[in-house]
């Protein structure tokens, strides 16, 4: 393994982005983007393997030793997140070609791929860096390209959705900068590991809790924690199919990773939970997200919006796991981060197939698709079952760990609410399934099954849902080790 892999993980896609813009030919720019995503995936898998077998890697940019220079640090936690982000990108890009050609004008396609690759670069950068200000820079790279990507949706509401996201996202990012600045004022360092060492001595100072508060709220805005989720449903619903599939399964996940990083690595579990009592805020909000957002999802007439609300609810599951602050709970959160990326990726990609053939993703438009687009809808059904948490799918594994973590601490009402969330998921998934399978097809019968270039990537994710649901040793093992690393116990 090249020792430069941590930085190449980010730099290669960063170089690919201008290349994709320069080639100016839709097909070629797609190829560049695809190769970049493949590279990122390959290197992320190598890094994960290395971290698991050897141990964390620290890379010094410009050979300046931390805490003066910028450090890229890969450990069990972010290596896993790197694999998720780049893996989803590598699956979404083959899917993108046909979908994007249909949804976006020809001359803007190279720009689309540039933005997509930049977005991935930003997300990978947030994940890999060990420098808090670097986090902000990459966050803005990914966010700005995400705003642009969302605005490329066909519906004009995509514009207002992107605008709303821009305003709320910028406020969140600015909060994060304030938090970082206040920490810098107190400690004079921006390196995460260094901060973690210096902060405990200053806990009594009032600036540190303020910094903590700004950071938590800022990150919560980015990860769409209820009730800071208002930007998310429209952004997911009106963005181009490819963008929804990519962003839904990566952007909020990376924000969850940021939350993990800050409250566990930088501030430490003792400060976050014993001094600041973060769990008293996060647990109720997470539970509210699970229940209220699942209920909202039931009443959505647009399936992409329905899934978006469900995403907010699912983020509640991840945050709930984190708020339990135990190895099992944090592991459940990390596990769901991975699993939910697979679930929502598959579901949004299935909806992209529907969009491609039917031109709408409203529930009425699904009528009879069980017969006219059997493979697409079968993918949706399996994805939906996984969302519900039926055994032998990834969704089940997440719920298993989450419920166990709650029971471990004797919080059985929490366990019950988690399961109630699954039941609400049954309702909103089944609403779509019934229309697809029991209503007569509308229109002149010209609707055909989606092309293979869309179906194969969708089914790759669907099968991943089943595969990691049957053999979860790898994912669960990594999640447990990551949680141990974050909490600083065992391993």
């Amino acid at each position, binding site marked *: 393994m090249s020792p430069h892999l941590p930085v190449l993980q980010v730099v290669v896609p960063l170089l690919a982005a201008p290349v994709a813009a320069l080639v100016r030919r839709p097909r070629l720019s797609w190829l560049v983007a695809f190769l970049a995503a493949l590279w990122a995936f390959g290197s992320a898998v190598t890094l994960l393997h290395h971290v698991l077998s050897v141990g964390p890697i620290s890379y010094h940019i410009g050979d300046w030793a931390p805490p003066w220079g910028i450090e890229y640090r890969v450990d069990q936690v972010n290596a896993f997140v790197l694999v998720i982000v780049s893996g989803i990108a590598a699956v979404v890009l083959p899917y993108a070609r046909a979908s994007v050609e249909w949804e976006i004008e020809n001359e803007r396609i190279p720009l689309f791929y540039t933005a997509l690759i930049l977005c991935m670069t930003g997300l990978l950068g947030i994940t890999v860096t060990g420098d808090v200000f670097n986090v902000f820079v990459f966050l803005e790279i990914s966010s700005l390209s995400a705003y642009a990507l969302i605005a490329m949706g066909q519906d004009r509401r995509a514009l207002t959705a992107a605008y709303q996201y821009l305003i709320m996202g910028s406020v969140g990012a600015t909060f994060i900068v304030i938090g970082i*600045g206040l920490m810098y004022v107190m400690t004079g360092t921006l390196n995460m590991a260094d901060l973690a060492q210096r902060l405990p001595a200053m806990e009594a100072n009032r600036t540190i809790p303020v910094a903590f508060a700004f950071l938590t709220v800022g990150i919560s805005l980015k990860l769409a924690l209820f009730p800071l989720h208002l930007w998310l449903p429209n952004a997911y619903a009106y963005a181009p199919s490819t963008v929804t599939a990519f962003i839904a399964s990566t952007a909020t996940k990376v924000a969850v990773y940021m939350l993990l990083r800050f409250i566990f690595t930088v501030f430490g579990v003792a400060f976050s939970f014993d001094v600041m009592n973060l769990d008293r805020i996060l647990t109720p909000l997470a539970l509210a997200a699970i229940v209220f957002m699942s209920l909202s999802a039931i009443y959505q007439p647009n399936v992409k919006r329905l899934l978006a609300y469900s995403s907010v609810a699912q983020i509640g599951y991840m945050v709930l796991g984190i708020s339990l602050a135990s190895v099992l709970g944090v592991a459940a959160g990390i596990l769901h981060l991975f699993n939910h990326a697979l679930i929502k990726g598959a579901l949004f990609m299935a909806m992209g197939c529907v969009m491609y053939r039917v031109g709408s993703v409203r529930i009425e438009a699904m009528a009879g698709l069980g017969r006219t687009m059997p493979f697409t809808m079968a993918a949706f059904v399996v994805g939906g079952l996984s969302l519900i948490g039926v055994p032998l799918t990834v969704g089940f594994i997440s719920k298993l760990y989450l419920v166990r973590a709650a029971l471990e601490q004797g919080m059985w009402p929490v366990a019950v609410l988690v399961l109630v969330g699954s039941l609400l998921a049954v309702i909103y998934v089944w609403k779509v399934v019934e229309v697809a399978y029991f209503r007569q097809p509308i229109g002149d019968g010209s609707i055909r099954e989606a092309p293979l270039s869309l179906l194969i990537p969708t089914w790759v994710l669907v099968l991943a849902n089943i595969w990691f649901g049957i053999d979860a040793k790898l994912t669960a093992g990594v999640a447990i080790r990551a949680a141990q690393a974050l909490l600083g116990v065992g391993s």
Partner: protein
Amino acid sequence: MKILGLYNYWIVIGLMMIGFYTMISRGNLVKKLVGLSVFQTSVMILYISMGKILGGTAPILIEGRENVVYTNPIPSVLILTAIVVGVATLAVGLALVVRIKEAYGTIEEDEIHEQDDVM
């Protein structure tokens, strides 16, 4: 005196609240962006003021002179990045507003909502 001595923080807080309030209270999309800019500017002042040392000079090494007090350059460098980000955000935001105007014929939030609700 202590409270007045921290005047830079009062400026920061004042600007921050002005920007935040503008963002929340105004329905005009451009005015919201102006509010966002003011909000971001307040953070820039926060950074720059915390790096400043009274009597400090620009951190340039000059041969033959020692014991010179320098201003910490790192916050300035950091905030330069934030300024770039702010400019980019503003540009993207304005571009969006232009296209919203073309699509809806208005940049007033409530009128846009009305048009969307009709659909």
